[in-house]
């Protein structure tokens, strides 16, 4: 986790420069920003919406939204914090708006697992993935966001607090509640 934070800090200067260049009209600078963050944003979005096709579309959409707002970005927060905020809000709106559809798709969205020698194992994996998808999607929006930012994106509580504009205490409480609920939802898989 610490390596990631260090890398992030090292990138911060480069990112600030790219933002500055974009604001001065250099369109190509935005492509570089996209390249730097596309993977992270895609992973975040995928874990938030739990559907590949939607995630592929929403990840691009996050950068489209960021593009339109970047000229007004006052750099009070870091670019990544700001970008994460855009992506998170986009996903929350999307899942809220499309909750019903998301749950229907859950039946179809179970990711195909690479076929192994053991079909039983494949089936178990498929069931586990489905259970996790369902458990995560069932979390209230804030708890789901905090859990994903913490567990998958490995961000510190302080950074999550900045992204969501909440106190660290609130973030910790949300995270604890999220784990508590996941523990309950996935109890059937725990021996």
């Amino acid at each position, binding site marked *: 986790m610490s390596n990631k934070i260090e890398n992030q800090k090292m990138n911060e200067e480069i990112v600030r420069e790219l933002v500055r260049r974009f604001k001065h009209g250099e369109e190509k600078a935005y492509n570089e920003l996209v390249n730097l963050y*596309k993977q992270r944003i895609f992973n975040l979005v995928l874990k938030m919406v739990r559907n590949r096709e939607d995630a592929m579309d929403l990840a*691009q959409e996050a950068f489209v939204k960021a593009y*339109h707002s970047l000229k007004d970005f006052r750099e009070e927060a870091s670019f990544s914090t700001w970008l994460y905020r855009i992506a998170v809000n986009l996903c929350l709106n999307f899942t809220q708006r499309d909750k019903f559809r998301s749950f229907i798709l859950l039946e179809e969205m179970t990711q195909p697992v690479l076929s192994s020698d053991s079909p039983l194992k494949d089936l178990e994996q498929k069931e586990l*993935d489905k259970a996790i998808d369902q458990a995560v999607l069932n979390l209230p929006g804030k708890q789901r966001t905090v859990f994903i930012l913490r567990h998958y994106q490995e961000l510190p509580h302080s950074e999550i607090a900045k992204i969501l504009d909440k106190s660290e205490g609130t973030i910790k409480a949300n995270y604890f509640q999220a784990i508590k609920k996941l523990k309950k939802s996935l109890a059937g*898989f*725990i021996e």
Partner: protein
Amino acid sequence: MRCKNIQVKLVDYYENSLPPEEKKLVQSHLEICSSCQEELQKIRSTFELLKNESSYEPDEAYWINFIPGVRSKIEKGRGTTLVPIPKLKIIGGIVSLALVLLLGIFFFKEDQKVMFKSSEEPYGYLLPAEGEKIDQLFYAEAGNESSASKLFSETDRNKLALAEIELEKNNWGKGGKEEALKKLDLKQLENLKKDLEKTKFKKEIL
């Protein structure tokens, strides 16, 4: 420290993100509390389970086309096209249908009111027979008494009753219809009959 206070720290304890002093407190509690040990084990198992989740990586083509895709969306102004369109269409259809129905009901009622309740000339185009009540005319128009009641309020009905008296007085005079008819010669009666035919026709086309 109570179990409740310890258990809220167990996730942080598992992630090794507690400050040293708190970590020591939790550790010493865990040594003597089997319930909290069990809780910690469940948390650990949950995280282990989450680690077993399948991962997904889009194919190379997606990443190659990522920036062109973003650029294309920027250019096309497709920034707000994520609302599921079929759902919008369905909602739009339902709303339109409801509007059409509401408007239909509204105009139908207005039309009925115009047909049956002209404020200036409530029934001037049709001379009532002696003793015939205005209400009855309207009942006949509306089809039955309850329909007429729905079309006219109590106030409207009172107004109509007053208008009826006024009309009786104007058309038939103090003596009423029979007295008035006696005073008419045959030609006048013929003319009156013709007028009535005309007004009936007028009523029908209205």
